[in-house]
């Protein structure tokens, strides 16, 4: 067995860091486990985002002699939690941008291309650069695909026109969206906010942006002539019941008009009208002056074609990888793991979750290489500093069981709008994220 601190201590510590409670505690220096394991295993990691980069750093510290290859075409590394701050005019677009290269450890091999096929039977990956990679262990960390075309009439190049914003698309688009939101809150009108009915990264982000728009309208004195409509994809606003109730209360307090069971299916930019499906198979048109389009999300094509996805249900349709939700090891191919957004687990599409998942994959993989086992598992930890206005947020942390797992119990109340929680998001989160990328948190 690998040496583990007791689960509760680990949970608290990790939670602390994952939540960006970096001010209080954030381990740096040596990686989690100091002992190295000797191996000649060929390990391929697909994706050098939050999860892939952190894992590459941790594994290269942990394994001696391993041949580690990471595959990612993206030259820019994007700190995505920063998109919300950019789209609120609080940071410039380059706040979220660094380079992939600067975070990767030396001694591993980076293929600057995308994986074009994965064959888990033959244990082989091919890439757009023409490489064929035979692996002993594969970690899929490709993140997810923003499927804008899943909304009829929508595409990325519409962002910035006719009141159509999209915080998710990237740092530049987030900045463009800020321009639109700034103008909208100067003038007033109908603001339309939504979320897709697929698995999505940071399910709190659509809510945050609604709150932020409301806040700007209030500060500018235009809230009176502003209508804020929020279309929820289901009968609730947030997947964790206790959080949902709180958000419902806040939405009421802020005077948002919430429409449940509405999913955006089409958009007509010239008329500034979006079409929504309704619960009994009907549809409804809603006009907007400003909207934040959040597209349906799914696993990247290469993953959907690989046979690694769930075979039934919504997870199958969206292509999330069929892993054991605790060990993150593939259910059918025991040399394959998934980490980050692409993992088909019931919770956990946030960078904070990736921070918890990566050490689990690391320990599971290293134990497997050593012919050993470990009881280090992922409990579904997910965290989201839910901004409710500029200057306040709620530090929401939960697990698979929909239990709140606060990092600072008795000190920072998870369901209160607090300044300290805003500080954590505003200044603590990026430092913590960067430390995670380096494998130091």
């Amino acid at each position, binding site marked *: 067995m690998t040496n583990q*601190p007791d689960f509760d*201590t*680990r949970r608290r*510590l*990790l939670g602390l860091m994952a939540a960006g409670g*970096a*001010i*209080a*505690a*954030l*381990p*740096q*220096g*040596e990686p*989690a486990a100091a002992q190295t394991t000797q191996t000649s295993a060929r390990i391929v990691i697909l994706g050098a985002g939050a999860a892939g980069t952190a894992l590459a750093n941790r594994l290269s510290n942990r394994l001696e002699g391993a041949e580690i290859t990471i595959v990612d075409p993206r030259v820019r590394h994007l700190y995505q939690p920063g998109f919300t701050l950019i789209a609120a005019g*609080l940071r410039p677009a380059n706040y979220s941008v660094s380079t992939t290269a600067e975070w990767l450890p030396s001694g591993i091999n980076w293929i600057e291309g995308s994986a074009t096929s994965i064959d888990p039977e033959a244990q082989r990956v091919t890439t757009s650069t023409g490489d064929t990679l035979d692996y002993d262990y594969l970690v899929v960390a490709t993140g997810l695909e923003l499927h804008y075309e899943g909304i009829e009439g929508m595409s990325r190049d519409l962002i910035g026109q006719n009141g159509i914003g999209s915080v998710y698309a990237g740092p530049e688009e987030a900045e463009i969206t800020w321009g639109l939101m700034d103008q909208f809150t100067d003038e007033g009108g109908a603001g339309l906010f939504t979320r897709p009915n697929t698995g999505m990264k940071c399910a709190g982000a659509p809510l945050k942006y609604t709150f932020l728009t409301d806040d700007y309208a209030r500060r500018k004195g235009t809230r009176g002539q502003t209508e804020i409509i929020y279309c929820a994809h289901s009968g609730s606003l947030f997947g964790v019941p206790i959080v949902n109730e709180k958000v419902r209360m806040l939405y009421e307090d802020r005077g948002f008009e919430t429409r449940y069971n509405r999913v955006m299916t089409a958009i007509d930019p010239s008329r500034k009208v979006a079409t929504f499906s309704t619960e009994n198979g009907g549809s409804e048109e809603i006009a907007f002056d400003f909207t934040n389009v959040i597209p349906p999300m799914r696993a990247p094509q290469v993953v959907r074609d690989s046979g690694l996805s769930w075979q039934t249900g919504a997870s199958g349709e969206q292509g999330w990888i069929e892993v054991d939700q605790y060990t993150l090891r593939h259910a059918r191919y025991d040399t394959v793991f998934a980490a980050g957004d692409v993992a088909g687990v019931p919770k956990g599409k946030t960078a904070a979750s990736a921070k918890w998942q990566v050490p689990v994959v690391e320990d599971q993989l290293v134990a497997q290489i050593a012919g050993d086992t470990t009881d280090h598992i992922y409990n579904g930890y997910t965290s989201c500093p839910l901004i409710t*206005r*500029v*200057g*306040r947020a709620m530090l929401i942390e939960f697990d698979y069981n929909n239990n709140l797992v606060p990092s600072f119990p008795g*000190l*920072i*109340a998870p369901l*209160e*709008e*607090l*300044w*300290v929680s*805003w*500080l954590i998001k*505003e*200044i*603590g989160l*990026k*430092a*913590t994220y*960067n*430390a995670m990328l380096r494998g130091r948190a």
Partner: protein
Amino acid sequence: MEDPTIGTFIAVFEEMFGGALFWGMVVLALLITAAYLYVLIRDRAVSWRKFLWAQLAMPIGAIAAVWFVLAITKSRLADIGGPIDLIIVLGIAALGAVGAAILVYTVQSLIKGKQTAE
């Protein structure tokens, strides 16, 4: 996971203020502290007259510290939402007050030199 290290806190604070500002503030704080210790040792007594002026600087230091933190975090006093927020604000104010007192005391001592008349 292991215990947080000094490096941890440094990384976080560099991120907060930017490297140059952070290290500038550290150097400044160290210089003022060193000067304060110097005048205490030199004078071998606390001058209560200087201390009175130092006390008068405390509210200003408190307000300046809180204003500074609010400005860099794009917040307002109205964002205080619960007891923990209040405790943090008071903590920042206390630090600012003590810092200002030490600064004023030290500056007086350095400028006026050792004074015997109390």
